[in-house]
């Protein structure tokens, strides 16, 4: 593994979260489209499938990925369009991580008891 610094990890996380979001979006279009088969169609069964544990964890990670991807996208816009963004890219990235955590922890606080409780 190349021992890059913050910028490399920011890029890698951005790429991984982007791929995860794109894959989930495809899956989401698929599951929503199942509605057209009516109330007795496969829609309910498919959504029940989402309640498998790997999916529950995965969906939480997709939420984290969306938040990170959005915030880091703002960081990239600042780097592209300001003269100072590149100079402060590390600080900006720590800000992105901090904000992602600040948004993610309350979400976990609300969601995890619910999924453990089996709602």
């Amino acid at each position, binding site marked *: 593994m*190349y*021992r*890059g610094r913050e*910028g*490399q990890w920011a*890029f*890698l996380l951005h790429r991984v979260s982007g791929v995860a979001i794109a894959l989930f979006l495809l899956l989401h279009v698929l599951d929503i489209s199942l509605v057209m088969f009516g109330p007795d169609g496969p829609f309910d069964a498919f959504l029940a499938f989402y309640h498998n544990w790997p999916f529950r964890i995965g969906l939480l990670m997709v939420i984290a990925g969306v938040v990170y991807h959005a915030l880091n996208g703002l960081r990239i816009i600042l*780097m*592209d369009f300001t003269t100072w963004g*590149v100079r402060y890219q590390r600080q900006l990235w720590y800000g992105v991580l901090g904000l992602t955590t600040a948004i993610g922890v309350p979400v976990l606080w609300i969601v995890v008891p619910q999924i453990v409780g089996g709602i």
Partner: protein
Amino acid sequence: MEPNEAQESIEATEPNELIETVDIVVKIKRFDPDADSRSYWAEYTLTARPSDRVLDVMHHIKWEVDGSLAFRRSCAHGICGSDAMLINGVNRLACKVLVKDLGSKIVIEPIRGLEVKKDLIVDMDSFFESYKAVLPYMINDEAPPAAERLQSPEERARFDETTKCILCAACTTSCPVFWTNGSYIGPAAIVNAHRFIFDSRDKGTAQRLDVMNAGNGLWRCRTAYNCTEACPRDIPVTRAIEEVRRAMLFRGA
């Protein structure tokens, strides 16, 4: 040189109670196209001075342990740009990094993304093709004035940092985009385009921007900053790329 002197210079790298030495293990990724089907790790245990450069250690291996080790170097003082290598996970010049800054274990690989010819020697042809593609020379067909083409200190300072490039390829071969897409023009070429685009005497900006606006041009950059961290000349590479991008974006259409 007297034979005695040569003898002394070899002994200077041997353990000596007057000179502080450290035991180090050097792992080098080696490949001989005539003998090996794929690369392998060779390990050398030796004694070095903390103030030795990695290049000194490699000379010691080549001259006294295994003469078949192949690597490039020329000036050995950080100017010629021949000895860029992947040392302990980071691209740097072997002549600019000291043993004491690496610890007792040193891992050396060829720079990535270019075909390995032998050991640490890679095929740099595509790297220099990308460099040539950005027309890295002054373009100005206007009639020259009677004296020089004058430039103010401020105009000169505008591109000062990108004049420092030594074409060692440490930046381009640290780029994750270049590793997976060898056709990407790469940070080194963009840095050298920047050097002329922001030169007030140069008139070739439109031609250079056209080259870099192509599919594998500067829009491929994903701002991973490995180039900026790797540059042995401390050129703010990513900043230069972003400046060229903005020049392209906001050029009079």
